[in-house]
């Protein structure tokens, strides 16, 4: 294991943490606001990835245009999903929520498999996937990972601003503080939840856009994304978006080091690091609840 190779991997791992933070940002909102874990979260990211694939491959749209088309679809999709499905089981006990989101996960995975087949896919980024910026010391930073990391920072910053400077954000924070009080004074919590879920849809779309260029994906890729997002959220501390970024970085670095030992250790390393940190500090690094 040579030092330059290891250093490269760690830098890569940090940047990939940005991708995991993108995955996790949506989950963090639904966990922090609506207080539920959407088990289909990863599958929805994969669903949008396939949507982008269909737009770019079949309709031959350039990727940026495809993303622009997919963003409003993702917002509306999240809104409708919350308003007409999840809202009906919120507050009725965890069994129902877990079962509905789990059932949705299975439906999405199999729908994708039935429609697109089981092959792994990737969207071409026109060379950006392999471009690197050389740094002193023989370390190279991949352009795409760097973009992803910067996008994560921008997104988290934007979400932060949305939550703390806009009226919509105040409403979202109000219902996540005390949904009964919100209803009592005249806020419509179903509508606010739906908007929050729409925002989650936007983060899902952005995550999908980057993931589909950087990583291979297939209809069964959802669960791994969910588990990664979940671990990043828990590590960071429930309710903390910046904590989620840190959680993602920890996982990215753990996986990078694991991969250095042996490729088959990559996923396992991430999970083990999660378990160890969780046992030591179950409330996460920056808990708000």
């Amino acid at each position, binding site marked *: 294991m040579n030092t330059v190779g290891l250093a490269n991997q760690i830098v890569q791992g940090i940047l990939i943490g940005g991708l995991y933070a993108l995955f996790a940002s949506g989950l963090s909102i639904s*966990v922090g606001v609506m207080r*539920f*874990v959407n*088990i289909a979260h990863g599958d929805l990211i994969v669903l949008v990835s396939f949507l982008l694939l269909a737009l770019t491959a079949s309709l031959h749209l350039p990727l940026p245009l495809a993303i622009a088309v997919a963003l409003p679809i993702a917002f509306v999709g999240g809104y409708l999903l919350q308003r007409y*499905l999840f809202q*009906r*089981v919120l507050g*009725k006990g*965890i*069994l*129902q*929520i*877990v*079962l*509905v*989101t*789990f*059932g*949705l996960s*299975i*439906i999405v*995975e*199999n*729908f994708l*498999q*039935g429609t697109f087949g089981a092959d792994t896919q990737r969207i071409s980024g026109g060379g950006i996937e392999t471009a690197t910026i050389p740094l002193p010391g023989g370390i190279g930073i991949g352009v795409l990972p760097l973009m992803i990391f910067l996008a994560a920072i921008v997104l988290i910053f934007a979400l932060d601003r949305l939550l703390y400077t806009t009226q919509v954000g105040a409403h979202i924070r109000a219902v996540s503080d005390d949904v009964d009080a919100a209803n009592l004074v005249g806020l419509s919590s179903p509508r606010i939840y739906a908007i929050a879920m729409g925002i989650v849809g936007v983060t899902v779309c952005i995550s999908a856009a980057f993931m589909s260029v950087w990583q291979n994906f297939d209809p069964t890729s959802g*669960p791994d994304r*969910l*588990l990664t997002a*979940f*671990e990043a959220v*828990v590590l960071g501390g429930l309710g903390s978006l910046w904590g989620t970024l840190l959680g993602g970085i920890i996982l990215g670095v753990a996986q990078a080091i694991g991969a250095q030992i042996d490729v*088959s250790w990559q*996923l*396992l390393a991430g*999970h*083990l690091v*999660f*378990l160890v940190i*969780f*046992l030591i500090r*179950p409330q996460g690094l920056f808990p708000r609840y």
Partner: protein
Amino acid sequence: MRSPRPTPRSVLIGRGILLIGAILLLAAPWITDANGLQIAADLLTMFVLAVMWNLLAGYADIVSIGQQAFVGIGAYAFYGFGVLGGVNPFVAILLAALTTLVAAIPSMAIVFRLRAAYLSVGTWVLAEVCMLGAGKLEAFGAGLGSSLPVSFAEYFGDTPAARSISAYWLALGLAIVAFVTTYLLMRSPTGIGLTAMRDDEEATATAGVNVLRARIICFLWTAPFLGLAGALITLQQLRVAPDLSFSLVDWTVYVIFIVVIGGVGSFEGPIIGTVVFFFIREYLQSWGVWHFIVLGIVSIGVILIEPRGLWGLLRRVIPEDLIPVSHRPPRSSDALP
């Protein structure tokens, strides 16, 4: 006022059907062929998984989507002790149960520190770790797994037909033991406390029922049974492999569908669910992935419309439980039943 009401006719009919089913199961080796016995053994194993998942999710408020971890641990332990260790195969089966129970204890450190839906995903993380870990074990064939040697399998019967009869008796035995003992658990003070908690959490807390202890007992209770199921599955499938022994789809997804459609939180539910599952699998299997979509949609529909499943629907016309787990007070009480 103390004389019991005559049991309603629908309840008697329901119990009669259950009794007939039980007799058929006992007579199966003489009624059907090796193929039928294999299907039956498979269903009985699924039934055991369903009873356990139902116990956790329907009574102990632990919605697990990681029980495939224990199934896999049981499978690998059975292979490890029996094939690699050369232990007597029947003893190996029991050791599989013991190993799974031992493995369950540290996992509680993770599971019981997470609440609600985070708990569910947490169980999934643990299961993933177990599956990935199993894939690293060279002695077990690493990622591809390995088959049961014929010499080992022959211990259960010289011919494939004889083996399927043995496998069937083992599965039936496990199903009966699992069902009866879990039923008795729910009729014990622990179980009554949990059922009462499910129906009225505040009252139970004030009555001093130790809910956490009851949930821990349930969690540990399921481990050996899941491990035994894992051992029997290995015997039925004649191999261990990470994606088989730790399969999310086979040992959790299908199980959840069975219990949800049949009826969570009742003892009739897993029975109905397993029967329905049999028919769905027979007739929808040819649809490929679309049968999952149907199962998923039906499950979500059930949850939204009648969360207590098919049994919940039947219960609207049948006035009593066929397999009562109601909160009758313990016999020492003077209260009216």
